[in-house]
Every structure is written in structure tokens, then in C-alpha cells.
């Protein structure tokens, strides 16, 4: 017990010995959390800059322009005179799309010659592209509906019936958990814990493998009575504490300060973040056990840490990935934390349904036990390969 205490003290002394630990364990995660929350505080980036090309100049085309101006999704920043101008503005990045009203539009509509309204959206930028598409489509549908209704009523159909005829079936979408379609809720809840996981893995690898690089690993083991378990515990327990506190800080900012949906008892996600920290540490220890070289181990955890933002399926679902690629998502602790967040905080379903995710995180912590012997051997004969 005394040995463990000494080892922990040594671990603490290590953390205060260099500025880089304070920076990587406290400053970076705290500032990044503030960065993400503040960057996307609007929730949804409405009012995408767009343009209208009005070649008709009729009362009808002006009312369409006004309808676009009143739309929540798009802002009509430019009224340009030609298609060519509009394309030029898209290509130089000043607008994300434009609405095109052809010449003689009103005349042809009234005459029943079915003119075409067209709208162009730049899909190379997903969110503004999608928003301007939605805004344009709504206006196009409304304009068409207005004309149909006028025609039906003028043909003697009761205006109530005409209204129902326009849209006989309405599919009402109910986005459960995020009815505001808030983009920030979706991105912050995945990217901030992802960043924390990356930092935990980097710092864990660095603190262990750096002992081998400097050749202090022999002394590190000796001070822990030659027990690899005690040595690792002493080194990692102080870090676990700090990172868990940072994890709780992140949750406080997300669910407390920003009022993101939190539909479960708080301890469900507290437990989640604590287990995420331990699982990530265990993952990093496993990497060092397999590749006991500071640079290579750091490269591996950087690779997994950065790729995990993609492969854990925050933005593109694992179910839609190629099987051979998607399967790797199950090897990453972050994936299970994400699923716990979705089930518990976002959807608020009973803990029972998330049981396997907690178990998976627990399993990660057991894996490094298999390689302790190998790690000990490496620590006793530290070799530094640049």
C-alpha cells in the first residue's frame, strides 16, 4: 500500500514537473470546449447568403423575391441581373445558391404554359447548401400551390376543399430529442468528448513511453517495488482524476451552461465519461505494450484518435460504412461513449438498453493486463529508437 502511495506521489510530481502536462490536460480541453460551444452558439446557421436572378420583373416575380427574403433559411444578399453573374458569385464564394425566375414567367403562368422556376445550390458546403435548397424548395412549392389554389377556386371548387386537395397527405416529422435541429447539440456532444479521448490517449502514451525514452523506466519500476501494476497505477491514477474532472467540466458546460438535452439521471453520463477516460488510458497502455516506442506509439494513438472522429460514426453512420471499415469502430472506446450519450442524454431511454456499452468500456480496461509482462521487460531494458 505504501508502495502504491509512493508511486502515486511520483506520478503527481511528474505532472507538475513540466508545463506541457498542464497545457495538454487542462488548458487545451477547457479552451477547446469553450471554442466549440461558442463557435456554434447560434444552433443552426440560418440565413445562408444567396441571390435572386429576376429576369421577369413582374409583380409575381417580385412577390417571389419577397417570399425568399422572408424565408428563415436564406438571406437574399444580391439581386443580380444575369445567370452568368450569379454563377460567378457562387464560384467566388459570396453566395451558396441562387433562385432563377425566367423572363415572361408571369405571362406564361397565367396563360397555363407551365414555365419553370429553377434554383441552384452549391452542395460542396453541406449545411449552407442544404439550407438554401430547403429555403428555395419551400418557396417554389408555395408559389406553385398558390397558383393551383387560385385556379381551383376560380373553377368553382370550395376553397376549403381546394386547400386539402393541394396537399392531401402531410407527413409531419418529429425529430425526437432535438426538435430545434440544433447543429451545435449534435456536433459538440460528439467532437468535444472525442477531443478529450484523443488527449487522454496522447498524454497516457507520452507519460509512459517518455520514461523509456529517457531511460528512467528502471527507476520508475524500482520505486514501485518492481511491480508493473503498481507502477502503472501510480502513474495513471492522478491523470484519471484530472481527466475525469475535465470530463465533468465538459458535461457541465454542455448540459448545464448550454442546456443541451439531458434526459437521464446525471450519473449515467458521469459514469460514462469516467469509464471513457479509463478505457482510453487502457487503450493507450495496450498500444505501448505492443509498440514500446514513444514516437511510434504516439503516432498510433494520434491516428486512432483522429480517425475516431470519423469512424465512430458521428457524422456518417457506421451501419452505412463498408463492413470491413465499420468493424473498426467497435475497437474504439469513444464509439461506446457516443452510444451511451445518444441513448441516455439525448433519448433518455432506460439504462437497460445501454448495458452493453458500459460493459464494452469496462472490457477495454482489462485488455492491458495481458501485456504487463511484456511492458515490464521493455521497461527494464529501455531502448530509444528515434
Amino acid at each position, binding site marked *: 500500500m505504501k508502495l502504491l502511495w509512493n508511486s502515486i506521489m511520483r506520478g503527481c510530481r511528474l505532472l507538475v514537473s513540466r508545463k506541457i502536462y498542464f497545457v495538454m490536460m487542462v488548458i487545451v480541453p477547457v479552451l477547446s470546449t469553450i471554442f466549440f460551444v461558442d463557435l456554434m452558439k447560434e444552433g443552426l446557421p440560418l440565413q445562408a447568403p444567396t441571390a435572386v436572378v429576376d429576369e421577369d420583373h413582374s409583380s409575381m416575380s417580385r412577390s417571389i423575391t419577397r417570399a425568399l427574403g422572408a424565408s428563415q433559411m436564406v438571406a437574399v444578399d444580391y439581386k443580380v441581373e444575369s445567370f452568368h453573374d450569379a454563377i460567378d458569385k457562387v464560384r467566388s*464564394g459570396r453566395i451558396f445558391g441562387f433562385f432563377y425566375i425566367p423572363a415572361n414567367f408571369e405571362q406564361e403562368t397565367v396563360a397555363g404554359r407551365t414555365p419553370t422556376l429553377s434554383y441552384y445550390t452549391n452542395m460542396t458546403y453541406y449545411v449552407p447548401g442544404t439550407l438554401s435548397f430547403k429555403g428555395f424548395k419551400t418557396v417554389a412549392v408555395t408559389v406553385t400551390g398558390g397558383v393551383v389554389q387560385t385556379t381551383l377556386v376560380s373553377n368553382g371548387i370550395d376553397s376549403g376543399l381546394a386547400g386539402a386537395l393541394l396537399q392531401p397527405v402531410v407527413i409531419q416529422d418529429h425529430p425526437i430529442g432535438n426538435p430545434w435541429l440544433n*447543429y451545435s447539440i449534435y456536433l459538440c456532444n460528439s467532437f468535444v468528448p472525442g477531443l478529450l479521448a484523443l488527449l487522454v490517449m496522447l498524454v497516457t502514451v507520452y507519460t509512459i513511453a517518455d520514461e523509456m525514452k529517457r531511460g528512467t523506466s528502471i527507476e520508475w519500476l524500482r520505486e514501485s517495488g518492481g511491480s508493473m501494476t503498481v507502477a502503472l497505477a501510480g502513474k495513471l491514477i492522478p491523470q484519471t482524476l484530472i481527466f475525469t474532472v475535465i470530463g465533468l467540466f465538459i458535461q457541465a458546460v454542455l448540459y448545464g451552461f448550454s442546456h443541451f438535452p439531458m434526459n437521464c439521471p446525471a450519473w449515467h453520463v458521469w459514469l460514462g465519461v469516467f469509464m471513457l477516460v479509463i478505457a482510453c488510458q487502457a487503450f493507450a497502455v495496450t498500444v505501448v505494450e505492443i509498440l514500446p516506442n514513444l514516437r511510434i506509439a504516439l503516432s498510433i494513438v494520434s491516428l486512432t484518435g483522429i480517425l475516431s472522429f470519423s469512424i465512430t460514426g458521428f457524422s456518417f453512420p457506421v451501419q452505412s460504412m463498408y463492413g470491413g471499415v465499420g468493424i473498426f469502430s467497435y475497437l474504439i472506446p469513444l464509439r461506446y461513449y457516443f452510444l451511451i450519450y445518444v441513448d441516455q442524454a439525448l433519448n433518455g*431511454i432506460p439504462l437497460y438498453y445501454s448495458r452493453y456499452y458500459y460493459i464494452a468500456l469496462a472490457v477495454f480496461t482489462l485488455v492491458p493486463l495481458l501485456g504487463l509482462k511484456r511492458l515490464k521487460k521493455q521497461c527494464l531494458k529501455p531502448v530509444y529508437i528515434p
Partner: protein
Amino acid sequence: MNIFSNIKLWWTSLYRVWRRELYLVFTDPGVMLFFFALPTVYPIVYTLIYNPELVREIPVVVVDSSRTAASREFTRTVNQTEAINVIGYAANLNEAREAMNSHECFGIMEIPADYAERLGRGEQAIVPFYSEMSLLIRYRSFVSALTDVQIATGARVQGEVLDAGGLITQAKAMQGSPINSEANFMGDPTQGFASFVIPGIIVLILQQSLILGITMLAGGIHERSRRNRGVDPMLIDDAPVSSFIMGKTLCYLTLYVPLAYYTLCLVPDMFSLPHVGDYMEYISYILPMLVATSMLGICLGVFVTERESSMLVIVFTSVIFLFLSGLTWPRYAMSPFWTLVGDLVPATWGMEGFIRLNGDHASVYQQTDGYLKMWGLTLLYFIGAWFLVRNYFKLQRSARLRNGNKTVAATLGD
């Protein structure tokens, strides 16, 4: 010393620094990994992850309280869309929720009991659809599929009602639609996810791998200095500061200009991503980004005192830079402060311009704004690097004096 010998010294040191830097790069496996493996392998891994492009056949459970021919027809129509796969019926909402909680489905459609009756009476029928919101891309696929179903079913029912009512021919002729509307998607016409995200990511990979490599080299300088009592034997510190910075930059460009061909041209080709520009356009636009990034790397390198800590301090910035670039969260919705921070990252401009050159068939001329800003950043970081490097040279020289000039440099040769 006359001006000509100064000029000569400048150019010869440029050459020496360039050659020494190339030697340092090719003798360092860690740096080689960043400079060559990272920009060649990463884009492929990323594209493989996102290459299925669209989210198809998302499992959905239907609660059909109407149980009529009309409701079954409606379910079939929904099932036929690309996005939705109806995996089964549930007796009621609770049973459907159970399926959703057990992660068997991501959407529930509830057809109300009076669905067919309302259609028959010519009233509006409302069908609620509940979507799970963990991923916005699923919700988006649902909504666009359901909107199409709504319009198609609407048109069919409209026709039936007008037929049954024996209404006037003109009204009948009007069904369909009096105005056509036509949506045109530019840049990424399939709206695929890889086509959207990869062109931006590859530019960011170029910047980040370059910075990682440069800072690791800088960490090497510090480590060699520590081993040699404050003097780095590999440092050419008699070079004028500006030619030292230029020589290093030239070395990185020698490696990255050909690499950019692979990353910017071959990768999109391999996976048939949107790709309409050509290499000459790309490289003439990306060149200032590479130069600015090299200078930025040299600036940052002064603070990296250990080879491996470059990874610690640089890797996480990729995520921050990705968001600052406006790829996920558009720049028009950022606060002025974050816009300014984003302005200082070369890749922000590199990504914006490259995406338009690559996807929208824009010309370099149309990217004047970003192009000039990148040269502006080059100037800014050059000045920064000039002061930092000059300071560092002073430290090295004083260390050398302290050691009484007995450095091991001579033994290493040049």
C-alpha cells in the same frame, strides 16, 4: 564586403540550407512518416470510411392503425424510397418505441386510424413520423425521402378526387402542376458525404502533415543542441536569417509540390469524387498555402523542444482547424473573433479555394481574395519566423562561444 558578395553568400547559404534540410528529412524516419506516409495513406483511409456516400435503407417501423388498402399502399411507397427500409409493423407506438430503444430502427411512422377515411372525404390526412436524432444525416435522408413521397401521393390522390368528382376538364388539366420547379445541385450533384468532405480534408492533411514534420525536425534541433551543450552541429547558423528560412521552405516545397499532385489530383480520381479542375490550377492556388504553412511551421518549431511533443501539441489542432475552416459550420455564422482566428490558418483559405476549383469549376481568378490572404499570411509568418530564428541563432552562437568553439560540426562535414 560589397553587395555582390552579400548576394552570393545569400544564394549559397540558401542552397546549403536546402541541401542540409533535405538530408535531415531523409535520415529521419519519424519525419518521413509525416511527410510521405501521412499525406498518401490518410486520404485513402478517410475516403474509404465515407465512400458509401449516401445513407440508404435506414430501418423504420410502421404503426398502421388504419389497416386499409390506402395505408398499405402508402407504406409500400415509403418502403420503395432509397433512404427507408420498412423492417416491420408494430401493433402500437409502445411496441415501436421498444424497437427503437433496442436500436433495431431509427424511425417510426404512425399512420392514424382515420387515414383512408380522410382521404376519401377529401380532407387532409396527417401522418406523423418520428425520427431518432443522433445523426443529422439520417434525419436529412428521412425528410427528403418523405417529402418526395408526400408530393407523389398528394398528386395521385388529387387526381383520384378530381376524377371521382367529375370536375371540370380545365381543373383536371391543371392537376400535375402549373409551374415546374427544378433543383440543380452544383459541386456535389449526388450530395454524397465523401464528395463533400474529402476535398476539404485533403487540403487540411497537406497543411497538418507539413506542420507536424517541420515541428518534429525542430524538436530534433533542440534535442541535438541539448546533447551538445547548447549547440546543434547540424545547424547552418552562418546563413543570413532570411535565406535560412527560404532554404527550409524551398526544401518543403520540393517535397510537397509533387505530393500535392497525388493528394489533390489522384485521390479524387481514384474514388471518382467531384474533380473538374486541373493540377496547374490547383498548384498555382495551393502554392501560397504551402509557403505560408512552411513559415508557420518554422515559427511553431521554435517552441517545440522535443521531437515527440510535436505530436502532442499539433495533432489536436486538426480538429480545431477543421471547424475554423467553415467546412462543417459555415464561416458566415461565426462570430468576428473566430472568423479572425480562422483567417490566420492557411488551410482555411486553401480549403475554401480548392473546394471551389475542384467542385464548382471556378477559376483561380475567382479566388483572388483567398489567394491574396494566403500571401498575406506568408508575409506575416515570415516576419514572425525571422525574429524567432534570429533570436535562436543568437542563442546558438553564444553557446558556441561558451564552449570555446570546439563543436563537433567539423566532423560531420557539410
